[in-house]
């Protein structure tokens, strides 16, 4: 009798274990990993999100075809798709000029520079106008190429990491590990940028566009800004303008967003101005990623410090 009771108890235990196993397997099958749809507004955010999120997120960058995504005009079709997104990562600092013109839910959007208002820099240009009955008013923007200060870029990447962890808590550990890796390499680059030694007494920097405010501020690379395009040709007006700005007692460098035209480079060299390229990462770079571009920029700037 005892034997029968013992074997029955064993049987019940074996069945219970099998059932539990089955249940947990069923539960796993029931909950397939959801891939959150994440939209980004510029390339640096795309880079951060792809480095941290990897294949765990469905990453979309609708302005990827734009040379300068800050001037992107999203059509209604894009916004309708973005309304369905789980997360919209924004740069903030007035980068997304289209944001005032669209209907998106606040809870879906994450401003990666929120809480960093004290670190934001003015554009340096303001425009006052008046018309109709409205009276005089001034439009002054905030400089938006924040990622050129790598301490801000790391802070933005951290916001991306936090937002992704909130969206897919099951992948938190992976995201955190990816972020740490990204943070380490960005910190390394930041240190190298900080070690740049450009003596303002001997070197004068002029920027082809006023878009380097954060780079100038973070690494002591002050200089005046022009409104020149790399595709512009060399002419009398340009010569006059640069001669007016250039300080003959110093070695003058003109910082371009992209490789200037041959005529421009040669014209500048004739009057002793050297062209260097520091890509502000407006759009998605071809064949390189963000860190590679930042490293290339660093190499260009290191040539000056040498």
């Amino acid at each position, binding site marked *: 009798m005892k034997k029968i009771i013992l074997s029955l108890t064993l049987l019940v235990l074996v069945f219970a274990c099998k059932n539990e196993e089955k249940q947990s397997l069923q539960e796993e099958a029931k909950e397939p990993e959801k891939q959150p749809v994440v939209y980004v507004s510029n390339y640096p955010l795309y880079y951060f999100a792809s480095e941290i999120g990897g294949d765990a997120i469905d990453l979309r960058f609708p302005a990827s075809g734009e040379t300068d995504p800050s001037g992107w005009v999203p059509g209604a079709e894009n916004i309708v798709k973005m309304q369905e997104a789980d997360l919209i990562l924004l740069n903030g600092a007035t980068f997304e000029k289209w944001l005032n013109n669209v209907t998106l839910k606040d809870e879906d959007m994450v401003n990666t520079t929120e809480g960093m208002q004290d670190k934001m820099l003015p554009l340096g240009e303001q425009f006052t106008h008046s018309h*109709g009955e409205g009276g005089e008013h001034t439009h002054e923007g905030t400089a938006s190429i924040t990622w050129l200060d790598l301490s801000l870029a790391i802070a933005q990447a951290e916001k991306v990491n936090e937002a992704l962890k909130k969206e897919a808590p099951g992948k938190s550990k992976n995201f955190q590990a990816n972020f740490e890796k990204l943070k380490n390499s960005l910190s390394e680059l930041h240190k190298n940028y900080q070690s740049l030694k450009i003596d303002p007494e001997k070197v004068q920097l002029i920027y082809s566009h006023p878009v380097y405010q954060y780079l100038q501020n973070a690494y002591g690379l002050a200089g005046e800004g022009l409104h020149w395009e790399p595709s512009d040709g060399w002419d009398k007006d340009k010569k006059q303008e640069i001669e007016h700005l250039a300080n003959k007692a110093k070695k003058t460098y003109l910082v371009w967003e992209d490789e200037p035209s041959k005529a421009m480079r040669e014209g500048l060299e004739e009057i002793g101005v050297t062209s260097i390229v520091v890509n502000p990462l407006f759009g998605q770079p071809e064949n390189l990623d963000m860190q590679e571009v930042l490293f290339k920029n660093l190499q260009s700037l290191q040539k000056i410090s040498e």
Partner: protein
Amino acid sequence: MGNSFYIAWKYLQFYWGKTLLLILSIALVIFIPFGLNYLVNKGSEDLMNRAEKTPLIVGAKGSETELSLSSLYFKRPKIEALEYREVEKMKAQQLGKPIPLNLKYHVKEQPIVGTTSDYFEFRKLQLKEGRRMAILGECVLGAKAAQKLNAEVGGSVISSPSAAFDVAGSFPLKMSVVGILEETGTPDDEAVFTDIKTSWVISGKAHGHQDLQQVENDSLLLNKSESRAVASPAVLSYTEITPENINSFHFHGDPSDYPVNAIIVQPNDRKSALMLRGRYENEQDSAQMLVPAEVIAQLVDTMISVRDLLILAGVIIGIACLAILAFVFALSIKLRKAELTTMKHIGASRNFIGSVLSLEIGIVLISAIIISGLITLLLGNFGIPLIEKFIS
């Protein structure tokens, strides 16, 4: 029985004018207490239903009834607007979801509701066709608004000035219709929904115009330098938002200062609702938070008191009318004495004559009850919106 009914019917048919008058009079006497009761109950139910589905409302201090009715029925607001920072403050508190409402403007008679897409989810509004608004200058119409404005998806509607003499304050904005909602039988059917930012464009807080740095026509500029341009009043704001000019639209000043007529608040839970109400009672001096169900319940109580008085009057009138009716029937039997005697002479029994007279009265009473029921049903369908319109 069949014979008695035939004779009673023929009698009523012969004197159709008198019969009709009698039926209508009795129908009205029945309708006043019963119909009124039904109508007020149904109206109160509808009013309470919408109010109960709206947990909390925030608005400027003033009449609670005005604030509730303008938020629930999109009545033109008569109390001061709040600043948008109130919405931002509530978002920061994270105790609930604030849904702003800007209600000052209209398209003809239809109210423009400047809000966020959260409103559609909050009221569970479904699209019959098209999509929700996505960019500035787009709108979604309620089912009845679409009919009344004769608008369809792909068409457009133009906002009207906020007041008859407000020719400069707000300017007409041509809005693209991108969606039409399913009919809900609520005031949402009558509304033109747009993003709150579009309602600020209508109010002139945001606008778009030619780039003054690029203007070539000197007559449009009074003064121009590198960083400053003074344009003549000839530079007009765009009255339609298109993909070509959308980027020229800009907001003047701090959007936190912009107006919001009311804020619907969806608290996270009961505790959050209590905390929010407590904060508004203790801290706020320019804003108030109210529970619309409580405000509307007070309004309904007033309606019910009036209804009770009217029913009492109706019952007294009814009793008097029934007495008169009994008298009329008694007189009628006396007047028909010769006719009844003839019936006796040709062999009709006393019971037969009694049943003919009873059937005549029965047919009249039943017809009156049916007619009063029909009037009640008719008013139940078309009278409730009238009551709501009257109240709001």
